[in-house]
């Protein structure tokens, strides 16, 4: 009797897992055309991002996940960018050509997207600048219901290895920008606001964004 109950329990767990797996779907991203004239040289290093050959592996997200950030309000630590508009972050144009990216000033800067309502964030895709091989420093991505990011902050990604941005030391990997952008897994982090930090890049002191997509579902 006990054995049959155990078998039944295991079968139920298996069925539930299968059902959950069936709810997971690959996140579909629309990618811009590559802008590199040449291919950046691969760097095979354990503490840095390894180069990948072929297609980026699918990131599985819950069924019903949508782009929540399209057309949403964007604010920034640099409210008056010299080049571009903050609206470029969520306008759907990630081509990376002139006139499609916003340029924020030097020193650490952040951009913040107001999703309009609290959401369960599955993934965040970011295109900083992809017409040249460069690495953005101290990239930190956070989700919160507090627009000032003082409480209830979930850090999705942090590669600030020396804590120069004073947001805590990060252990994530630095990466070279390319046309695929960077896909951060948010694992259902809850929040209405998504904030992204950076601190210049390997080419200049400035901070750029072509597009940011926040994929998830509105919290019920």
């Amino acid at each position, binding site marked *: 009797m006990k054995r049959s109950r155990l078998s039944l329990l295991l079968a139920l767990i298996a069925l539930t897992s299968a059902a959950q797996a069936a709810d997971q779907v690959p996140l579909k991203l629309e990618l811009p055309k590559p802008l590199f004239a040449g291919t*950046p*040289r*691969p*760097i*095979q*290093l*354990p*503490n*840095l991002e390894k180069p990948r050959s072929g297609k980026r592996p699918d990131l599985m997200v819950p069924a019903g996940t949508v782009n929540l950030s399209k057309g949403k309000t964007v604010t920034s630590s640099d409210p008056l960018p*010299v*080049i*571009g508009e903050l609206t470029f972050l969520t306008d759907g144009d990630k081509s990376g050509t*002139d*006139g499609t*990216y916003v*340029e924020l000033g*030097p020193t650490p800067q952040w951009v913040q997207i107001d999703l309009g309502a609290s959401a369960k964030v599955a993934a965040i895709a970011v295109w900083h600048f992809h017409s*040249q*091989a*460069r*690495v953005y*420093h101290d990239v930190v991505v956070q989700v919160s219901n507090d627009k000032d990011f003082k409480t209830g902050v979930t850090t999705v990604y942090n590669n600030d*290895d020396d804590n120069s941005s004073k947001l805590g030391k990060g252990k994530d990997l*630095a990466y*070279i920008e390319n046309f695929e952008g960077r896909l951060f897994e948010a694992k259902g982090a809850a929040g209405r606001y998504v904030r992204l930090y950076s601190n*210049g*890049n*390997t*080419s*200049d*002191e*400035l901070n750029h964004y072509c597009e940011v997509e926040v994929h998830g579902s509105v919290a019920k």
Partner: protein
Amino acid sequence: MLPMFAPFSRWLPLALVALAALWLRTHDLARRPMHADEANQAIKVGDLLEHGRYAFDPRDHHGPTLYYAALPIAWARGQTTIASLDETTVRLVPALAGTLGVLLLFALASPLGHWPALAAAALMAVAPASVYYSRYFVQETLLVTFFLAALVCAQRWWRTGRSSWIIAAGACAGLMQATKASAPLFAASALIALAVVVRARPASARLTRDLVLALSAALVVAALFYSSFGTHITGLHDAIATYTHAGGRAATGTSGHEKPFWYYLSLFGWYREGGLLWQQLAFALLAAAGFVVAFATRQKLLRWTALYTLLVVIALSLTPYKTPWHAVHLVPGFAILAAGALAALPFRPLALAVASGVLFLQINQTHLAAFLRPADARNPYAYVHSSPDVRKIRALADSALARTPGATIRVISEEYWPLPWYLRAVPAASVGYWSAPPADCDGALVIASATHAVAVRARLHGDYHESYLGLRPGFLCVVFTPVTTLP
């Protein structure tokens, strides 16, 4: 106006132009990271300063005046070693020379009248190329200033016939030659323009003697510098041999610096680059109007300037080898021509309004080029410029050597300038440079180019933390920092 105030009203504007030129050229000089060429030359200054050593290298370097000119500034600032030398000291050389150049242009343009000469000086004082390269430790601004000084002295000699002026002009020509091998291009253009435009004879009664004096002064001055003031006689031979290298580089079109014919003129045009607008159209149009005025009037200086500038534009444009710092040679001519156009306007208020508008637009561009985006790849004057990341090297090196005293900092890269400048305070025994990965790559800090990073990683022992550092746009390095203390 009271007569006693007349000199003030006449000379105060010039003083203000000179002060503006000085401020634009000296304010916050250390802000921009060192370009590879600046760093390389600053290291040579350090060697001269600390060890008194200098030997002219005809292959990859220009003349010696830049290095020697840095010495008195370093001494005045209490810097006697390469470690104590800083960006401000070396950049003060072109900055002060550039300011002097503005005053010399005023003197040269004085035959146009006081106000047009003042306008010419003001236009040069705020010109983006002039300001940018007066804040940049390369030879070009020094060459322009020596050239203007030679012209002013020659102009005075022409009028007075006094030998001292022609000797001074010759000495300035010698300084030009001791600054850069391209000096004869500008001297020859000036002489051709003079021969075409001016028919009258100079005031000197002993023309041959004066020309011999000038030539002698030029040769003596150039020889003193190229021979390192008599301590390196081979430098005299190398001063001539440099033309083999420079000529080959300029003519063969294999240097990697080849650009289209219209490149220099385009710098004075209108275009967008990565969202930034670069334009000097108003200045260029005013100069073009001055070109027309030059041939519509009998003003000799204006005609000479028009022809000289045209010759230089053609010569520079026909040379396949082009770099943006050569644009500074066009600015004095354009400024005089623009001043000539202003002088031709029928009403002074109109001339003042046009001059103010052009100056405003030029200041705006200078602000963008020299202060807002001085090392930006979109800045036409920031040519293959170092990334601001390079300034992190000093702190990384200091902390690495503090962690592991006695260990070596290794730079393993096919290109590494300006890193030696940022590592100049590190004892020579503690830093090494390799163009390919050596057998032993371990060190207190290992900086490898992206090309060599894989091979370097394979040869490292123990745990290293890794991060990226940009040498310049598109050229990435990987910085390996030992996690554990080296044995």
